[in-house]
């Protein structure tokens, strides 16, 4: 298991993140920090507020209170595309690919923030070099997730597992520094899950990423993550290395009580 680098810098810092929907508190005063280069797991029973937390972190839902900062820059309050531009990119629990577009296009679109051709450059074809680069990177990313030979197929036609991998490729296309994966292993079998573990590590190393993962499957989390945070009813009940978190009585209580 990769030990986190000693004296790693903090990349993400959440302070008192809170989100209320009407009377319901989905995320309640959550604070934690994520260090550069680590794989940080987010676990908790169903409805614990994990996805809401991701939404708060990526600008899809504004927080009721609290802040998130990325290397000292405030993230909360920014629109999602600004968060993406800052270097935080995500996948979705219930896969939100551009279903009627090809795999290749899905990955090309996500390079939007890293390119600059405007309307007229596009219309007059003056951004050839940039287009070529977009095209090449898209193919390379599809290579990485093993879908290059099906680049022209519509995203909707892919199997569940392939869609999840395509979504990771798309997230990587935004050239993130932090990758947020929302249940990447959902619907995968044991062999696929094992492959996914090594794939995420490989990606992290190759792209110098910090990775946040929401995951249900406890063995996978234990195996993959450097540190784990546990949410229950919107509250953070434990943060630490997988082994210690697993022994935490509050965590055991939450899981046994919850299921």
């Amino acid at each position, binding site marked *: 298991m990769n030990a986190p680098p000693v004296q790693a810098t903090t990349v993400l810092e959440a302070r008192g993140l809170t989100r209320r929907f009407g009377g319901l508190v989905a995320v309640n005063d959550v604070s934690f920090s994520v260090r550069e280069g680590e794989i940080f797991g987010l676990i908790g029973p169903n409805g614990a507020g994990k*996805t809401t937390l991701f*939404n708060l972190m990526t600008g*899809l*839902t504004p927080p009721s209170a609290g802040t998130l900062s990325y290397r000292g820059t405030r993230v909360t309050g920014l629109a999602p595309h600004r968060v993406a531009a800052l270097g935080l990119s995500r996948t*979705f629990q219930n896969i939100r690919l551009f279903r009627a577009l090809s795999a290749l296009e899905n990955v090309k679109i996500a390079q939007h923030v890293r390119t600059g051709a405007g309307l007229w450059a596009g219309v007059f074809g003056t951004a050839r070099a940039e287009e070529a680069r977009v095209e090449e990177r898209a193919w390379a990313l599809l290579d990485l997730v093993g879908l290059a030979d099906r680049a022209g197929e519509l995203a909707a036609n892919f199997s569940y597992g392939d869609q999840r991998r395509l979504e990771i490729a798309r997230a990587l296309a935004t050239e993130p520094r932090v990758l947020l994966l929302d249940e990447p292993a959902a619907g995968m079998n044991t062999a696929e899950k094992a492959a996914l573990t090594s794939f995420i590590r490989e990606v992290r190393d190759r792209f110098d990423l910090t990775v946040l993962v929401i995951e249900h499957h406890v063995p996978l989390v234990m195996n993959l993550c450097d540190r784990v945070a546990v949410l229950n009813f919107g509250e953070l009940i434990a943060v630490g290395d997988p082994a210690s978190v697993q022994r935490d009585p509050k965590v055991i209580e939450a899981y046994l009580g919850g299921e």
Partner: protein
Amino acid sequence: MELSQLVQNLLNGLAIGSVYAIFALGYTLVFSILGIINFAHGAVFTLGAYFTYTLVVGQFENNGLLRGVNLFPQGSPFAGSPWTFALATLIGAVVAGLIAVLIERLAFRPMRARGAEPLLALVSSLGVALVIVNLIQLLVGAEIYNFPANAYGEVRPALSFQLGERVVIIRTVQLIIFAVSLVMLAVLGYVIGRTRVGKALRAVAESPGTASLLGISVDRFILITFFLSGVLGGLAGTLVGTAFGVAGPYFGVTYGLKGLAVIVLGGLGSIPGAVVGGLVIGLAEAFVPGDYSAYKDAVAFALLFAILLVRPQGLLGRTQIQKV
């Protein structure tokens, strides 16, 4: 503004507003179930008026293929008394309902079966409206037909009372429309809120998928919806026809656009919303100062634009929460 003026504007607004409202009831009913805007509703509304006219008068005089055909050589049995007129209105409405059912079978259901884009229903219903309107013109011409003046019996054409220095006046037929639209709303509210059919309808409106799992025949209830919408439309057509005449084949279609403003203002798919929306637009139009009456037609759409920006779900509509 003086009190009498205020009261007069209020009455005027409620009177025309209730016309908008009864037009919009059937419109919004179909939207609540299918989520489509049925442009053919205006045509069905027109048909209702023409059917009743056919029963009451029996012939179309000047133009069209039916010129000179006299349905009742001995005089119509539906003419003469308010009760027979009411019967004719009811029959006209039911036939309009059946036509609406036919429209659903021929123009909407095949589309649903194919899972076509819901927007196409707009085009299809526009096509249906075009067919109906032009068929009416072919058959009975473009002229205005008017119901006999004594359709409601020998009632005074208008009621008036003194308020301060001025007289406040209201046409009897508009009071009738107002009353009938309230009754229609109450009946519809009862049917939808209290009866088994209504519960099933609501289930279909909420989620067709779940409803069919519960053993509700979705297609059957869509047919019922169209029938109800057609009956309401046909009834409204006759009522409005008695107030303003059956003003040619485009008679109902011209209400279609304003009806759209009404149902959006009230909240798409909300039945009380259609009534509230109709009354609000009627009142807003009535309170346009005389000097600006030229802009009266823009009022409904200015309201529509404004409400969409402030509260897209309309006055009485429900918010839809988007799931991420």
